[in-house]
């Protein structure tokens, strides 16, 4: 009275067929190139033995162009749920050995079903992209499949973290699914992402370019800003994914994985004082400041190579997960330009969605002057930062290190933009504009009437600087919480974060604001 062994054998065979993907020969070819298979990638992503597969026995649904005679195990994608760091994560991994990982109707359905499940269960989605594109034999059904995936991406946006790994070709419309997710990791080898490749560009415009210039990980990380992390290879990409997930909650109604310390530490850090140059024209390397502030110097920088005049990333500060937004005075004088505004605004909004407190480090002389900036719409782009900060209801702590001039200061989360606490170093200069510019307006007549206008201008500027190049003017008007020594920053910021963690702020209900995109 036991089950017919033939049935078990059939199941065993079906499992083996599905797990073999495109077959031994194609897998061997991949290994020769130093590439992992779709299943090997998932095996590295998840803790051993935790992967539960969805739709293992799925097949393609195409009955034309000879496809009816072909087998497509899993329809070219492996989907399911596994555990990372003790938490469930949904993942799909496109299988290039099965029909080039091309997307057909069932392939798309598997991805959509997985995303639907992940949204309801409240777990992150990790997508590994390695696909030749649409399955041409399935025509408009492939196209429709992409549309359905995009729609699901948008439904999940803001509900669970979505992370994409580009580990192979990702071309044309296919690139828009990762583009709709929160973070893109791209491998330096074997991955290309583009809408129109060099050949199409040449045929339609005559422009000559290379894949390196338009579709490589480096181009996307530094120039287009489409990619957030560059990985040397697939293993490195998985490490980045693990690191990133270690800072994120599973969904928008959970807190991020804080690991609060039992007792806060307030020991002063003398290195912080040393990092502040006496000459206000000498730039601070803000990355060194960040390294001192965060636990174990452990800072996961996001979009490191794009718009490096602003630095954004994730860390823990005395155990609390925190998103940092910091001006980088060592590059472009720390000015805000179009790219820097876009980069920061997106990161601020991500943190707000997932309940990650924001720490803003300010040393900003203004928006970057220039014709290209004005004509490129710095007004519209800079407004994104104002919008993102003002619309965020997570704890917002601001530290004014040195320059905090004009509209750029407001865009760096001043008290007016809803900062819960604002601390200033003794080197802080909070002013509507720099001294030289200000006196030209304030003392226009006096300077013009003076015997030596240049000298008069310099004298007025010195007087102005003495008065305003300190945080006390702003402190006297109760615009800042306190003036602190740089060496005290870590302790005080930790306490500010902890005090503010229970913050609850409700806003009038609406569909969504109209951020100037």
């Amino acid at each position: 009275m036991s089950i017919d062994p033939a049935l078990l054998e059939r199941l065993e065979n079906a499992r083996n067929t599905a797990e073999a993907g495109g077959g031994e020969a194609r897998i061997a070819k991949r290994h020769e190139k130093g590439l992992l298979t779709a299943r090997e990638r998932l095996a590295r992503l998840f803790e051993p033995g935790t992967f539960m597969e969805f739709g293992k026995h799925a097949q393609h649904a195409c009955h034309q162009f000879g496809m009816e005679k072909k087998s497509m195990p899993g329809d070219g994608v492996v989907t399911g749920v596994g555990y990372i760091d003790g938490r469930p994560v949904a993942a799909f991994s496109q299988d290039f050995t099965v029909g080039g990982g091309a997307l057909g109707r069932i392939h798309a359905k598997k991805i959509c079903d997985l995303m639907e499940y992940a949204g309801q269960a409240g777990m992150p989605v990790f997508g590994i992209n390695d696909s030749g594109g649409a399955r041409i034999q399935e025509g408009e059904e492939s196209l429709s499949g992409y549309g359905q995936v995009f729609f699901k991406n948008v439904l999940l946006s803001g509900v669970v973290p979505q992370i994409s790994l580009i580990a192979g070709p990702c071309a044309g419309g296919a690139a828009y699914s990762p583009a709709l997710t929160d973070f893109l990791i791209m491998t330096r080898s074997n991955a290309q992402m583009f809408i129109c490749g060099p050949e199409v560009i040449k045929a339609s415009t005559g422009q000559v370019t290379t894949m390196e210039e338009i579709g490589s990980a480096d181009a996307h990380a530094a120039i287009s800003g489409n990619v957030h992390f560059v990985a040397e290879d697939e293993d490195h990409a998985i490490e980045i994914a693990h690191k990133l997930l270690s800072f994120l909650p599973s969904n928008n109604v959970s807190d991020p994985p804080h690991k609060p310390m039992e007792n806060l530490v307030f020991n002063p850090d003398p290195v912080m004082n040393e990092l502040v140059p006496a000459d206000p024209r000498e730039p601070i390397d803000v990355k060194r400041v960040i390294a001192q502030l965060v636990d174990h110097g452990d800072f996961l920088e996001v979009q490191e190579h794009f718009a490096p005049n602003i630095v954004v990333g994730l860390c823990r500060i005395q155990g609390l997960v925190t998103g940092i937004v910091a001006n980088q005075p060592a590059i472009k004088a720390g000015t805000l330009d179009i790219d820097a505004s876009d980069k920061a605004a997106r990161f601020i909004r991500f943190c707000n969605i997932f309940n990650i407190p924001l720490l803003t480090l300010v040393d900003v002389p203004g928006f970057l002057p220039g014709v290209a900036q004005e004509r490129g719409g710095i007004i519209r782009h800079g407004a994104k930062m104002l919008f993102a900060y003002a619309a965020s209801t997570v704890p917002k702590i601001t530290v004014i290190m040195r320059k905090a001039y004009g509209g750029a200061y407001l865009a760096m989360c001043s008290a007016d933009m809803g900062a819960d606490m604002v601390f200033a170093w003794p080197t802080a200069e909070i002013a509507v504009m720099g001294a030289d510019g200000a006196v030209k307006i304030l003392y226009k007549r006096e300077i013009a009437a003076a015997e030596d206008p240049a000298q008069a201008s310099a004298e007025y500027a010195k007087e102005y600087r003495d008065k305003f190049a300190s945080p006390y003017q702003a402190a006297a008007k109760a615009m800042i919480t306190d003036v602190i020594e740089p060496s005290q920053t870590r302790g005080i910021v930790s306490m500010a974060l902890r005090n503010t963690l229970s913050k609850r702020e409700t806003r009038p209900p609406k569909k969504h604001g109209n951020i100037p995109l």
Partner: protein
Amino acid sequence: MKQLRITVDGKSYDVSVEVLEESNPADTAPAAPAPVRSAVVRAPVAAPIAAPKPAASAAGPGTVVSPLAGKVVSIDVAVGDAVNAGDRVATIEAMKMNTFIYAESDGTVAEVTAEPGQMVDEGAALLKLS
């Protein structure tokens, strides 16, 4: 005050330990379970940060350009000097801040094309390395 029992060669000793100072978490080893490559977790940055190349620069290879419009404060090398990638070669003042310009590659200074006090545009050549 903490009571600890320490056993040495089968003989046990009771000791009391007083913790005088909370350790700074920055001094202790990370509790992260997996080893992580340095590319993921940045060590404190010691090396100077190279300014990014302006995207629209028409300058050829070996040309060091200004990353933003400003005034040349100093050219920190002379024709014939050997420079290594990462060496500071010029200083530009813009937005009340000095921006240091670093060589992107090793080479010898072949030509200096800007002088102190001069205003330069974003992407303007400052010097050429050969």
